[in-house]
Each structure stands twice: as structure tokens, then as C-alpha cells.
């Protein structure tokens, strides 16, 4: 049992110093994850409150969320990062629902860029596997390179190329493109 896991057990037994150490050790991880999501959205100033909300969730109802953590399945820093990022996304969604009087909004903010109409063709469910859809999304929608996509999915770059190739073969067959 690692020192961190032992300290977590003491924390769950109600040991106050163990909780203080937990906060000191993981506040940078949680704050960084929250700020990384809120900053680009222009809500970096809310990061401290959202990070505090994460700690409230962790100790609420007798540490119910913390008790759900299993060290055998994932690192605690990864788990906390996922929770913190999700909290930041929830915060942004709540902010989107906020409305303000139209007169208080600067005119420049009301400008809408022209959108070119695009023909969207729906693909049948099951034509592409989730991984194939993901690879295409990362390469074309997010402009990621093969190496980054491979790192995201935890596979080697050749797997990305192979998955990409198979996906496009399926799409070509679906749209019945003429052979060159």
C-alpha cells in the first residue's frame, strides 16, 4: 500500500490532518484542470470557486465521492483531473444559460459571422466504429496530427493510419465513389 493510499484511508476515517495534506497535495492538480478549461472560455476568474466546489463534492455526504475511488484502476491525479474538468464544463454550461438585457451587450458582441451552408449527409448507424469516428474527428475536425491522435487513444501511429484507412474505405463504399 502506497503512502498516498494509506493517507487516503486515514482521511476517510475522519483524520483532519490527512484531509489538510490531501488538499495541499492535490489543489494544484484540481485548480490547473479547472483553469485549463475555463481560461480559454474567458472564465478564468471563476477557477477558484469551481475548484472549491470540487472539494465540496469530494467531502460531501461523508466523503461519498472519495470513497468511490479505486487506486487499482486509475491514478488519483487522473481521476481528480477528470472530476475537475467535468466540474468546469458544468460551470460553463450553467453560464451559457445566463441571460442579460440586450441593451447591456456591446454591439460588437452581437455581430454574427456569415456561415456558408454545407450539405450534411448522415451516415448510417454502425457504418463506422466509435474508434473510426474518433480518428476522423481528431484528424479533420480538430486538425490533430497522427502522433497526437495516437497518444490520445493510447495506440501507436500506425494503428491510427490503419484505422483512418479502413474508415475511409467504408465511407467510399457507402457513397459509391467511382473508381479512378
Amino acid at each position, binding site marked *: 500500500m502506497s503512502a498516498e493510499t494509506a493517507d487516503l484511508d486515514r482521511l476517510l476515517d475522519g483524520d483532519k490532518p490527512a484531509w489538510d495534506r490531501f488538499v495541499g497535495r492535490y489543489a494544484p492538480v484540481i485548480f490547473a484542470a479547472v483553469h485549463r478549461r475555463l481560461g480559454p472560455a474567458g472564465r478564468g476568474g471563476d477557477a477558484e470557486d469551481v475548484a472549491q466546489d470540487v472539494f465540496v463534492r469530494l467531502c460531501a455526504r461523508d466523503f461519498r465521492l472519495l470513497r468511490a475511488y479505486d487506486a487499482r484502476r486509475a491514478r488519483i491525479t487522473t481521476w481528480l*483531473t477528470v472530476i475537475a474538468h467535468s466540474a468546469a464544463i458544468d460551470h460553463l454550461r450553467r453560464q451559457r444559460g445566463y441571460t442579460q438585457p440586450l441593451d447591456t451587450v456591446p454591439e460588437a458582441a452581437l455581430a454574427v459571422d456569415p456561415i456558408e451552408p454545407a450539405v450534411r449527409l448522415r451516415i448510417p448507424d454502425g457504418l463506422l466504429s466509435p474508434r473510426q469516428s474518433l480518428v476522423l474527428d481528431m484528424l479533420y475536425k480538430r486538425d490533430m496530427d497522427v502522433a497526437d491522435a495516437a497518444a490520445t487513444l493510447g495506440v501507436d501511429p500506425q494503428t491510427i493510419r490503419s484505422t483512418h484507412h479502413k474508415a475511409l474505405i467504408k465511407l467510399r463504399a457507402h457513397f459509391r465513389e467511382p473508381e479512378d
Partner: protein
Amino acid sequence: MSGSDKSYEPGSPEAAELWRQIEVEDDSGSGPETPETLLIAAYVDGTLDPPARDRVEAWMAGSSDALDLVLAARAAHAGAPLAAPPADLLTRAQGLVRPPVAANTGWRHGGAGWFAGMVRPGMWAAITAAMLFAAVVSFELGRETTVKLAATQTLTVASADDDGLGFDPIAGDLL
């Protein structure tokens, strides 16, 4: 065959054009159910078996927020140094858990320990003193009522004798 396949290299114009034909701008969240947090973390750490991994990837394929989350979690482990959080955050977060009231109260677990820590020890002494005071006041009021009742009965007996009835109402015989 190989000639036409070559045109579908990642990033090739032909491949990008084919992608644009099928891209669907649907982020309504109507995709697969969000996996539990620990499952997502296990996926990021690469500890999932293939069926569980497929479930997470199906969720990621259905939501741009989902893919953002996984990308952020991976970036968090890229080794970049973390900025120190505000000092206020540490103070506020550590203050969420209070020390237990006493070591031998038995109230050491989570929320109960927190509640016990919130109750000041002097409050119990004050409650006990108030209960004792109420008991004494009740006793004195009861005793005063009994004394008044006895005095009223004595007055009633004395008044009956003064009427000259010629008989002792207590003895019940004619004099």
C-alpha cells in the same frame, strides 16, 4: 487499388473532402451515456480491457466535450509544472473538514464528526443547568399551590362554625 487508397492518406485533400460530406454538427448530448468518472480515468491511464475501452470511445465519439475531457486529462500528465493555486483556495478547502469534538466521543466518521466538532462543549452544560432550574421552579410553584389550597379549606371550616348552626359540622352531631 493501391493508387486509389493512396489518396486517402491522413490529411489528404481527398480524405478531408470525404470527411466533410459526413460531418454531422450534432452535439446535443444525445449520444451514449457518460461513463463513470473512474472508467474515464482508467481509459486515460490505459488500464481498461477492450470492451470497456470501446464503451468509453463510443462516448467520446458522440460528444466533443467528452473528447475535450480526455484530451485535457492526457495533457495534465504531459509533465508540465503546475501553477500554485491561490492561498485562499487551500484555506477554504481545508476548512471544509473540522476536527472531531473529542477523541473518545466515537463521533469520528465523516459528517457526524464534522457536526460534533461544530457543537461547543459549554452548550451541554448550559442545557443541563436550564433543565435543573426548570425543575426547581416547577417544584416551588407546585408547593405554593398546595399551601394556598390548605389555607382555603381551613377558612371554610372556621366560617361554617360562626354561623351558629348548633352542631359541629366535623363531628356531624347535634350539640
